[in-house]
C-alpha cells in the first residue's frame, strides 16, 4: 500500500526566491549587453542588480488570488449598478462630463502604462525588477478594463462615451495624455520608471485618484467608486515600486544623481500639466464639490510632496525645478481650463457650461484672491453673450504648446493678466510653448519634440484640410449630441425625464 506523503510546503520567502532570483541565470549564447540592449544608453550606472528590493515580494499564486477576489466583487457591484439603474443616482448629468474626460483621456493612459511596464519587465536585467514590472503591467491593463466596463453602463444612456478609442487617437484634448505616455514609452527604461513609476504614480497619482474617487462617492456614482477601490491596493504597490526604483538608482552610483534630477524636473512638470484638468473637474464639473483644487494641492502637493522631497534630500535630490511656477498657477489653472473648454466646446465630446451663481459664490470663497478679480468678469460676459443669443465659440482655434500639447491657456507666473508665451527656433523652424518648464523639456531633446503631432496643425493639413465637419466625423464626434453647452443638451433632457419616471408616478 502506498503511503500518502504530504508535499513539502514552501514558505513565502522560498516561493518568491524561486519566482525571482533563480530566474536570473547568466546567458551564454549571447552577451548580457545583447540580451539587455537598452540599459546603458541613458547613462545610469548599476553595479549590483541584486540590491534591488521588491518590498512586496508578491508571488504569482497570491497575486492571482487577490486580484481574482477583487474582480469578483467589482463585477458583482457593476451588475447591480446596471440592474438598478445606478446611472439615475448621480447628483446631476453634468457630472457625466468628468466621466467622459476620464474615459477618453485617462483610461487609455492606464493601457499605455500596461504596455510600458510590459516592456520594462523585459528590458531590466534584474529579476526582482522584471517581476514587479510584469505584475504592474497586468494591473494597468486590468485598470483600463475595469474602467471601460464600469463606464460602459453609462454609454447605454448618454452621449460622448461611445467613441473613446477614436478620441484617444484623434481628439485634440486627448493628445495631452497620449503624448505624455508616448514620451515615456519612447524613452529608455530608467527614464520610464521615473516618468510613470515615480513622478506619476508616486508624486501625482493621489491628486488624480483621491479627488476623483471622492468626487464619484459625493456624486452618487457607485460604479466609479468601485473601480477606484479595486485599483487602490494596486496603487500602493506601484507607488512603492516607483520609490524603490529611484532610491536604487541613487544608491548605485553618485553619477546617476544629475540624470535622475533632470528626469524628476521634466516629469514633474509634464505630470503637473497633465493633471491640471483634474482641477477643472473638481472646481467646475462635480455638481457636489468635494474640495477645491487648491485644497487638494495643499494636501497632496505641498504637504505630501514636500515631505517626499525632504526625505529624498539625503540623496542630493532637490524639489522639481517647476515647483514654484506650479504653486503660482494653482489659483488660476482650473478657471483657465474651464473657460477654454467652454469656448471650444463645439469640438469636445463632453459638455461644458457657464457656472451658476451659486457655484460662482463657491469659487469666489475657495479662490478669494483670484476668482472675483480675474475670472468672474469673463463668466459674466459669457453669460451676457449667451443671453443675447450669441454664445461665444472661439473659431480662432487654439495655439498649442509643442511639448505638453495643451492649448497655451496659462498666464505668466507673476502676471495673471498676460498669457504666457515662449518661443524658440530649432533648425530654422519656430516652436511655441506654454511655459518655461515645457520650453526646457523641448530644448533638452529637440529632435524628440519637433515631431509632435499637434492636432490643431493636423486639422489644417491633408486629409482634413480645415474642414470642421470632416474633422468631426474623423474623431467620431456627433455634433449636436456629444458636444456643446450642457444647457439644452440631450443628456440634460434625458436624465431629467428618466429621473422623473424613476421618482414619480407621472
Amino acid at each position: 500500500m502506498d503511503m500518502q506523503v504530504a508535499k513539502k510546503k514552501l514558505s513565502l520567502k522560498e516561493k518568491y526566491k524561486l519566482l525571482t532570483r533563480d530566474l536570473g541565470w547568466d546567458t551564454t549564447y549571447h552577451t548580457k549587453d545583447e540580451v539587455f540592449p537598452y540599459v546603458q544608453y541613458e547613462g545610469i550606472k548599476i553595479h549590483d542588480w541584486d540590491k534591488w528590493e521588491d518590498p512586496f515580494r508578491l508571488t504569482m499564486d497570491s497575486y492571482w488570488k487577490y486580484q481574482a477576489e477583487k474582480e469578483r466583487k467589482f463585477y458583482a457591484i457593476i451588475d447591480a449598478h446596471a440592474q438598478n439603474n445606478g446611472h439615475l443616482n448621480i447628483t446631476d448629468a453634468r457630472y457625466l462630463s468628468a466621466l467622459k474626460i476620464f474615459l477618453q483621456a485617462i483610461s487609455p493612459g492606464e493601457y499605455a502604462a500596461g504596455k510600458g511596464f510590459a516592456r520594462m519587465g523585459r528590458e531590466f536585467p534584474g529579476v526582482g525588477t522584471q517581476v514587479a514590472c510584469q505584475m504592474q503591467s497586468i494591473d494597468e491593463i486590468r485598470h483600463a478594463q475595469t474602467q471601460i466596463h464600469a463606464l460602459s453602463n453609462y454609454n447605454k444612456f448618454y452621449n460622448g462615451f461611445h467613441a473613446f478609442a477614436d478620441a484617444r487617437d484623434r481628439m485634440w484634448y486627448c493628445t495631452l495624455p497620449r503624448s505624455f505616455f508616448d514620451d515615456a514609452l519612447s524613452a529608455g527604461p530608467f527614464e520610464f520608471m521615473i516618468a510613470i513609476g515615480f513622478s506619476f504614480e508616486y508624486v501625482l497619482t493621489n491628486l488624480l485618484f483621491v479627488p476623483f474617487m471622492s468626487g464619484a462617492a459625493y456624486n452618487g456614482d457607485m460604479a466609479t467608486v468601485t473601480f477606484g477601490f479595486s485599483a487602490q491596493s494596486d496603487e500602493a504597490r506601484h507607488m512603492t515600486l516607483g520609490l524603490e526604483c529611484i532610491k536604487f538608482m541613487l544608491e548605485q552610483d553618485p553619477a546617476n544623481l544629475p540624470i535622475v534630477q533632470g528626469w524628476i524636473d521634466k516629469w514633474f512638470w509634464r505630470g503637473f500639466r497633465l493633471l491640471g484638468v483634474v482641477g477643472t473637474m473638481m472646481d467646475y464639473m462635480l455638481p457636489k464639490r468635494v474640495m477645491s483644487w487648491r485644497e487638494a494641492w495643499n494636501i497632496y502637493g505641498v504637504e505630501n510632496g514636500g515631505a517626499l522631497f525632504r526625505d529624498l534630500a539625503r540623496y542630493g535630490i532637490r524639489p522639481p525645478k517647476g515647483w514654484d511656477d506650479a504653486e503660482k498657477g494653482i489659483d488660476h489653472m482650473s478657471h483657465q481650463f474651464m473657460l477654454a473648454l467652454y469656448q471650444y466646446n463645439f469640438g469636445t465630446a463632453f459638455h461644458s457650461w457657464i457656472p451658476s451663481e451659486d457655484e460662482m459664490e463657491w469659487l469666489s470663497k475657495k479662490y478669494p484672491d483670484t476668482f472675483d478679480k480675474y475670472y468672474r468678469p469673463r463668466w459674466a460676459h459669457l453669460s451676457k453673450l449667451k443671453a443675447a443669443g450669441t454664445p461665444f465659440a472661439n473659431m480662432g482655434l487654439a495655439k498649442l504648446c509643442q511639448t505638453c500639447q495643451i492649448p497655451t491657456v496659462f498666464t505668466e507666473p507673476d502676471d495673471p493678466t498676460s498669457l504666457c508665451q515662449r518661443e524658440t527656433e530649432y533648425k530654422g523652424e519656430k516652436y511655441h510653448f506654454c511655459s518655461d518648464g515645457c520650453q526646457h523639456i523641448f530644448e533638452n531633446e529637440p529632435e524628440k519634440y519637433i515631431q509632435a503631432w499637434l492636432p490643431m496643425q493636423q486639422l489644417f493639413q491633408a486629409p482634413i484640410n480645415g474642414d470642421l465637419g470632416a474633422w468631426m466625423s474623423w474623431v467620431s464626434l456627433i455634433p449636436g449630441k456629444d458636444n456643446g453647452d450642457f444647457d439644452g443638451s440631450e443628456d440634460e433632457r434625458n436624465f431629467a425625464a428618466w429621473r422623473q419616471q424613476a421618482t414619480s408616478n407621472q
Partner: protein
Amino acid sequence: MALTSTKPYVAVPRDLVENFNGKQIVYVCWDHHMLFATPLLLVVEPEMSFGDLLENVVKPLIGPDPDAAAVDLGSVEWQKAGRAWKPDLAASLAANGIVHKEQLRFRTPGVNSLLAAA
C-alpha cells in the same frame, strides 16, 4: 545633445509649411484680453496683405470682446517674435517678414473692460 538615443536620430517636424497647401500659420494675440483662451491660430495665404488679415480675419474673431468695437486695428502697438514692430498694412504677410508659425501680439493700453480690476 539633441536626443538621448542608442544611435544618431534625426526627426522630421509634422507641421512644416509645405504641408499647408500654400498657406501658413500665424498666431495673433490681443494682450491682456483674456476672453480668448489662447492666441488665435490663423491659417492664411502668405500673399494676403496685413491689412486684409486684420480686417477680414482678426476683426471678426475678436468681435465677442466688449472692447472690439472701440479698437482700430490699423493703429495698435505690435510685437513680432517678442520685439516691437511696425507692420506695413498694404504689404503682404511675406513682405512683412511674417514667417510660418510667427507670433504677433498687439496692445491697446487703457482699453480693457474685462480686466477692470487689474
